[in-house]
């Protein structure tokens, strides 16, 4: 597969390491009442869609960026690639 890196352009997926659903960015609040349940769902439950999937890839043999890749799990077509850091910020994560 080829991942169109937002900074570097097309790169072979073998340069990357895969982690999984980009929902892993949305780490729950450990202080929350339902933290135990929230962390259980966060760590273990997946939508696992047959179709479009937002997922995390690490450019291990490249610029060491974590990327959020939107890929179709039925066809492997990739429609969007973003820097995970930008996505994380846009989802309200900071420090």
């Amino acid at each position, binding site marked *: 597969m080829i991942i169109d890196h937002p*900074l*570097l*352009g097309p790169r*072979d997926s*073998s*340069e990357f390491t895969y982690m999984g659903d980009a929902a892993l960015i949305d780490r729950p609040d450990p202080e929350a009442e339902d933290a135990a349940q929230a962390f259980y769902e966060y760590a273990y439950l997946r939508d696992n869609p047959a179709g479009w999937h937002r997922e995390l890839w690490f450019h*291990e*043999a*490249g*610029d*060491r*960026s974590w990327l959020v890749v939107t890929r179709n799990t039925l066809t492997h077509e990739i429609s969007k690639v973003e*820097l995970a*850091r930008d996505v994380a910020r846009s989802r309200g994560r900071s420090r």
Partner: protein
Amino acid sequence: MHDLTPTPALGYEAQTIGTVTITENSGVALASVAARTGHSDTCTAELTSLLGAAPRVGRAVLHDPEAGFWMGPDQWMIGAPMATHEDLADQLKARFGTAASITEQSGAWVVFDVTGDAMPDMCELLCNVAIRRMTAGDVQRTVIHQLGCFVIRRASDDHIRILGPRASAGTLHHALITAAKSIA
């Protein structure tokens, strides 16, 4: 002044196979510069004053004595002659202060210069870079025989510089020699 002598990663003689010459270059001091949060502009400015320009994404600035290339977002690798810049990291720290995180990298890398007409054919057997599309100053981090390497297209058309992990210098050199023989 200390009395320890450095040893090169391999210390092999330059080797010419067919038209390709492979040379270990142990004369390069290296240090990385990573911009602290909110200081990328300061870093860009400093890099410009140091190299004449801040290396853009996927590019190197082939400048003397210091040269530099882009490593990652807000991160650059600076290289300079070991003879004059062994303390490159300290020099850079002094220059960038708290605007950047400086990390000494000299020991981490083995540097090979590969030159010759058949260099592109050799690259095609080594790594997944579109070598014939690369122009002077293009840099790509890639994989050679499972090793993470930087491939830098130097000024002259038939010259690339390869930075690879020093501990695997032997493996990397073997891969280069094998490929050179294969296309010779």
